[in-house]
């Protein structure tokens, strides 16, 4: 029996409808997240990766944005077809998410315990005692020291790293099929980032849940992801196994991204940056969106959006200059 993917996103379009025009923040994104794997989505700020995550959970800002097209299949069911009540059942049970900034993710006026119990109680535990025990248990799993004391404390009494562990605990407490982590280490101290990544990897491996890992840092991708999708200006431009992408990046943007990861190898190496800015999402060009900043771009690149090439069996890239094999 073939395993169906944990999550499958097909041709997702989420647009912002603003006074100044339509902003196509997510403009045709498709990917598959297999069960038990970690897929990274990497790209610079504003490329649409966070919005993709929010679109999956259907928590986009309703006043200005809407998912206009696409399918989001969670264990085979299309989330976009669900009514609000059904969607709420999915959240906090089958899908969970870790947000970027631990300082603002927790409600300052309620205790850690309160906010954790809230999530656990949703799983159908009836007695308060069981809920409390489960809370302590899951806090131990995220390696939070002295969990009993922490549960009666308030968020401002914990450090950023501790708070992020609590957020992690909240997410895994429901044993989700898919965990979305939206830049979970970006706001943490560099010294703690590695610890946290290790923790996430452990949790993922021991539970077998699938993880969608969003980041702008290719270095982080290397440490935790199995596969990676590179996103640029609302679309995925390259996707494949991490090892392959690192060894053989096909899209010029990917190459530039990998090149810009500081490698402490040669002391006289200049920090390479990518010149220019991504195009405005309300005024997208017809051709390749990276063409303006690309050294290899020609007229065809600028006028026609590249089709998807198969670089290998599992590695694809959208670039006219990508050489297969």
């Amino acid at each position, binding site marked *: 029996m073939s395993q169906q993917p944990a999550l499958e996103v097909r041709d997702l379009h989420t647009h912002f409808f603003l006074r100044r025009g339509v902003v196509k923040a997510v403009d045709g994104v498709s990917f598959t997240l297999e069960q038990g794997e970690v897929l990274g989505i990497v790209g610079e700020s504003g490329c649409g990766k966070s919005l993709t995550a929010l679109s999956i959970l259907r928590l986009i800002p309703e006043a200005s944005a809407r998912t206009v097209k696409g399918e989001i299949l969670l264990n085979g069911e299309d989330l976009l077809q669900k009514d609000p009540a059904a969607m709420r059942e999915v959240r906090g049970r089958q899908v969970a998410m870790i947000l970027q900034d631990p300082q603002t993710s927790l*409600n300052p006026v*309620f205790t850690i315990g309160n906010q954790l119990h809230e999530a656990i109680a*949703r799983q159908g535990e009836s007695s308060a005692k069981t809920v409390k025990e489960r809370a302590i248990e899951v806090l131990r799993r995220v390696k939070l020291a002295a969990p009993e004391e922490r549960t009666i404390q308030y968020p401002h009494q914990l450090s950023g790293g501790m708070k992020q562990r609590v957020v992690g605990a909240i997410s895994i407490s429901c044993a989700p099929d898919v965990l979305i982590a939206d830049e979970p280490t970006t706001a943490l101290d560099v010294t703690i980032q590695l610890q946290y990544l290790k923790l996430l990897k452990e949790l993922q491996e021991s539970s077998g849940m699938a993880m969608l890992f969003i980041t702008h840092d290719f270095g982080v991708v290397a440490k935790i992801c199995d596969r990676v999708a590179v996103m640029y200006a609302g679309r995925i431009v390259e996707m494949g196994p991490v090892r392959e992408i690192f060894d053989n990046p096909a899209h010029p943007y990917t190459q530039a991204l990998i090149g810009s990861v500081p490698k402490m190898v040669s002391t006289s190496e200049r920090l390479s940056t990518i010149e220019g800015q991504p195009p405005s999402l309300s005024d997208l060009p017809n051709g390749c969106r990276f063409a303006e900043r690309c050294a290899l771009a020609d007229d065809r690149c600028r006028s026609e959006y590249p089709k998807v090439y198969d670089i290998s069996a599992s590695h694809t890239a959208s670039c006219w200059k990508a050489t297969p094999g």
Partner: protein
Amino acid sequence: MQRFILQRLLQGIVLLVLVTSIVFFVGRLTGNPVDLMLPEDATEEERQDMIERLNLDGTVMEQFQVFVTDALQGDLGTSIRYRQPVTEIFFSRLPNTLAMIPPAMILAMAMAIPLGILSALRRGGWLDRISGTIAVLGIATPNFWLGIVLIYLFSVSLGWLPSGRMGGIAHYILPTITLGTFLVAGFMRLIRSSMLEALDTEFVKLARIKGLSEFVVVWKHCLRNALIPVLSLWGVFMGGLVTGAIVTETVFAWPGIGRLTYEAVIFRDFPLLQSVIIMDAILILFINLLVDILYAYVDPRIRF
């Protein structure tokens, strides 16, 4: 938390000292304080008495000393009109004002909180627009005029309610509405904007991610946070309350300290006015302190 309370207490005392000093100096501004303190028909003897008592021949600092010493002993002067110690008069009228404030506050909150919350939840909707209009109208309509119009409608024309003075429940209705509407507009805008802020936070997003019902998200997570700014701006509302009380009590001939203030102005009773102001400052200081304690208790970031 103790530090916070102490800090607020200190601020209040500084305010009190400031107010007292200003009142004192304004009184001495005109260069003829005796005239201010005594009725027009005072005898030469009475004038001399007053000059001696208040040390009006001495330097400003000496006069201030007398003033403060008297004040600390509870002597803030004698009312020209009532010929009684002003503190006596003040305390006899205070309960009447205190009686009117809770119903007005409750009315204001009962209207402002639901309207503010619903306006924020259905932002841009018809309810939001109507509430916004009511708020703007509430600010534009002069408080005293509203009171008079209400009297005209419900007392004079319809004869349903009494037109003034204290009495049974019927007497409370119109003044409560007048004072309450004065407060509603400001409250509602504040609650609306703090709810909007709360709705936009990351922890509300996380609450939704957890799959909590919209009801819990709004009433548990948002509201608690939204009410905190309301408490912290309480001081400003207190000021508004006092102002509103002066005008409302005047319109409805309500025998409270607001009307007392009006009388002091109309009859040019300087000692009375002077002490009403100082007593008001003490009252405000006291109530603000109570609210600050409540605030410190409600916001865990201050408590720990």
